């Protein structure tokens, strides 16, 4: 048995703007996670859709929902229906098209490429049903993140002691780590740390981690 669905509110819920939990609410969640990982509103969003997403994105409102997520709207935000217009008005340029067919991908997969000036960001996400999502890649790093728990996503230099420094800060703030994952491109190069905690990490903890020399950025993803 997989345990992607953990409790009552993964089944009853989300409270959402229709019409599809996987293609609208799930898509909005993936878009919002991308936005929060990027840390600010991008100037350009390039979206590639796969499988069922590619075939039904207009009818299911996937386009509108992904963009709503990029604008940081929650699944129940009524502004979702007007997101394309709002994006345009606020200078977010969006392009959306089916990606090259990939048999390995789950039927509801999306790749989101964001940029602002020189900054670029890339995410691969899957909507697995009922509004639940999984993020499988962040900036080329293979990960597995559901967004069901508060999660810190920390790109950092792959150096001795960084992980210990981060976990020390978390334990100082009495945060219990429920899941942790580190993936790296190669020895001594860039790495990405994902840490899920039972409680929401406070701003101070995030700021302290940010101050570590090897840490480039810290994004906090809250369950939504």
């Amino acid at each position: 048995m997989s345990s992607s669905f953990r409790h009552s509110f993964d089944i009853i819920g989300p409270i959402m703007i229709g019409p599809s939990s996987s293609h609208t609410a799930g898509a909005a969640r993936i878009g919002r996670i991308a936005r929060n990982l990027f840390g600010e509103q991008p100037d350009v969003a390039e979206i590639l859709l796969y499988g069922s997403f590619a075939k039904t994105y207009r009818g299911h409102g996937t386009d509108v929902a992904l963009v709503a997520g990029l604008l940081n709207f929650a699944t129940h935000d009524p502004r979702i229906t007007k997101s394309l217009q709002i994006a345009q008005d606020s200078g977010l340029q969006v392009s959306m098209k089916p990606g090259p067919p990939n048999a390995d991908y789950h039927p509801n997969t999306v790749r989101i490429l964001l940029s602002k000036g020189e900054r670029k960001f890339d995410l691969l996400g899957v909507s697995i049903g009922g509004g639940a999502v999984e993020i499988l890649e962040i900036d080329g790093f293979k990960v597995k993140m559901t967004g069901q728990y508060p999660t810190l996503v920390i790109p950092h230099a792959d150096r001795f002691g960084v992980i210990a420094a981060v976990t020390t800060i978390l334990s100082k703030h009495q945060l219990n780590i429920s899941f942790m994952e580190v993936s790296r491109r190669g020895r001594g190069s860039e790495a990405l740390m994902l840490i899920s905690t039972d409680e929401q990490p406070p701003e101070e903890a995030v700021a302290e981690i940010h101050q570590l020399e090897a840490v480039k950025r810290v994004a906090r993803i809250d369950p939504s």
Partner: protein
Amino acid sequence: MRFSNLAELVALCGQEGKPIYEVMIDEHVHETGATRATVLQQMTESFDVMMKSVERGLTEDIRSFSGLTGGDAKRVYEYAQKGKTLLGKQATEAVAMALSTSEVNAAMGLVVATPTAGSCGILPGVLSSLKESLGATEEQLVLGMFTAAAVGFVVANNASISGAGGGCQAEVGSATAMAAAAAVELAGGSPEQAIQAAGLALKNVLGLVCDPVAGLVEIPCIIRNGFGSVLALAGADMALAGVRSVIPPDEVILAMYNIGKQMPVELRETALGGLADTPTGRKLEKQIYGDDTKEA
């Protein structure tokens, strides 16, 4: 969770002498550390949203995103008020209220996914009809939502609740099974009868494909929600009468999973087969999107 299938769930209920909804609430409290009051409160919020969506579709003129659907909920509701229906007033009203929520969903209104948005009409349809037939209070109906959640939890983790993953049997089918179990417990049936109702109802939607016209969550989705509510009530009635599913409910779920895997991709939320690929389905698709429906 201390259970991963329906048999374990019923065993747990037996050990603790509790209905499914109580076990489900306990599990939630244990798992998340939230208080019982908070958990109930959160479910009540979902209940309120559900009832509002039922209400909206019966009182407002709902037109869907595409303009293709809307107004059927009202039609059926008004028909039921005239008194003479073949199913009886309460079951016909359940149909109306299931249609209502699904129409609101198709119009990009606010709904609760139960377990998905495509199948969001069935549980509210059934619960609102139980308000009348059983005189169930709001508190009781909210408890019934935990029964539904328990069944949905098992289906979601052992099979699928996504049309793209397992066809419409995974959406409308799961919702029907969930609502059937909830109806049994609210009517005073045992946990065993509740899961039998889920198994019976699910058997009747095995193989149901996902073939939404033009990729919209409208045709056939909305009508299927209407039917799902009646199917759930029928399953509940059969189980309460003592009918059992010879194939155990957990095995029905397994069958649903396997059928989903055997389904061609055309019939899993790609709008390439089934009703989507009928002459009228294609015509409507063109009407909505113009000719540029080909993939890049």
